[in-house]
Each structure stands twice: as C-alpha cells, then as structure tokens.
C-alpha cells in the first residue's frame, strides 16, 4: 500500500473514531439519567453504548496502525503507548497517545469488570471523561484537516453533543442523589 493510501486511511479513520467516541460519551452520560427515549429501552441504550465503543476501538486501531505503517513520517510502535516519543510531531502525536492510553484503560477494565470491585471499575471508567477532550485536542492539534470547514463543524457538533449530555447528567444526578439521601421530608399541613 502506498504511503498516500495509508495517510488517507489514517486521517479518515481518525475522524470516524472521534465521532464514534463522541457518540459513546453521549450514550454513557445519558445512561444515568431517566430521560430515555420513549420507545427505546434503557438496556438497549447501554448495549448501544458498548457496541459503539467497540466500533470506535476498531477505527482507532486502524488509525494507529496506518499511522505507524506509513513510512512517510516516522512514528514508531513505541509511540503507540508511550506519549511524546515519536519523532514526528512529538507533542500532538503524544497527546493522541495519552488518549489511547486512557481509552485502553477504560476498555480493558470494562472487559474485566466482573473481576474487580465496583468502585475500582467506576474510578477507571471515569478516565473516559479525560480521554474524549484529549482526543479532540489531538484531532485539532495535529492540524492535518483541522482547517477544513466541515471538520470544524464536526468538532463543534461533538462539543455541543457532549456538553448537552453532561449538563443533563449533572442535573439528573443532583436530583436523584438528594432524593435518596433525604432524611427529612415534607411536613403535613
């Protein structure tokens, strides 16, 4: 395969992975709220979250592999997991590596969920909140297609989607938490 082909696949799969990661984040955030779609059961939403995350991993793998195999610039295999070790665009590739590391932790901990304490799994899964903005930063920091209008629009849409989901989640959690730990209650007339 020519270097150019690798490069196109790297860029395309990267964008797709970002979109899929955004979708995963949004679904993960609204899982905890009661605002499920009326005709869409909650367990299906959770299953969708899982499957989209796996799809995101596939495209991420493609993105990483093609970027390493592309000989036009040198990004060694080591740079996949250790940040800031690539000779090409050390910083922004490194940022991408950080995102990969966080994502790998989340993904592997989910696969091994049954074997760890609920609190451990939860803590590790919260790393997901970190990997999304890091992935977004990598996308725009690398700069390859970041100037394109449609990419900027896509990035904006991703930010809006996650922002909305996060707002909803924060509001819902506050409401539920208060109800459950309420030890005083309305007094009678």
């Amino acid at each position, binding site marked *: 395969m020519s270097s150019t082909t690798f490069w196109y696949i790297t860029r395309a799969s990267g964008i797709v992975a970002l979109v899929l990661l955004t979708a995963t984040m949004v679904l993960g955030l609204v*899982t905890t709220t009661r605002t499920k779609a009326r005709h869409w*059961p909650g*367990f*299906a939403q*959770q299953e969708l979250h899982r499957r989209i995350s796996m799809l995101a991993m596939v495209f991420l793998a493609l993105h990483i592999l093609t970027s390493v195999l592309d000989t036009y610039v040198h990004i060694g295999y080591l740079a996949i997991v250790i940040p800031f070790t690539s000779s090409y665009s050390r910083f922004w590739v490194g940022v991408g590596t950080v995102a990969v590391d966080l994502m790998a932790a989340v993904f592997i901990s989910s696969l091994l969920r049954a074997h760890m304490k609920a609190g451990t799994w939860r803590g590790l899964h919260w790393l997901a909140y970190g990997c999304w903005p890091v992935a977004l930063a990598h996308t725009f920091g690398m700069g390859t297609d970041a100037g394109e209008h449609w990419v900027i629009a896509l990035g904006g849409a991703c930010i809006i989607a996650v922002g909305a989901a996060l707002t909803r989640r924060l509001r819902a959690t506050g409401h*539920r938490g208060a109800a*459950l730990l309420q030890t005083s209650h309305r007094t009678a007339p």
Partner: protein
Amino acid sequence: MTAVHITIDPVGCAAYGYCAELLPEAISLDEWGYPIVDGRPVPAHLLALAKRAVRDCPKRALTLREHTPDS
C-alpha cells in the same frame, strides 16, 4: 433441580429499570421506578435473560441465587 431466584440489593439499586425491561415477566417497577420481584423461581426459558439482567445492572444490584428445594 435447583430453583433460581432473583435477589435485589435495595441499597445498591438506583432505579435504572433495565432489569424490568429485560425481564418483565418476573420484575415490575413500583411508582418510583424501583423493581419488585414476586419471589417465584425464574423459569428455565428466561434464565439467559435473567443472567443478562444481572450483567447489565449498572449498580450490580441484581443477583441470582440458587436454592435447592428444602424437604
């Protein structure tokens, strides 16, 4: 032949309701969204769904217990 029963940890349960969606034959929800189980054993043809409900509960509040029937 062991009977499998659904047990809900009421402290962990946060009323996600996935269990009732997956297993409406055995689990219903009260007016506040918390699951009610009737205490009957899970029929064999629903066992796979019951196991899935256990796996899918975000709070790990659902468990399946086996009881050999006492004499």
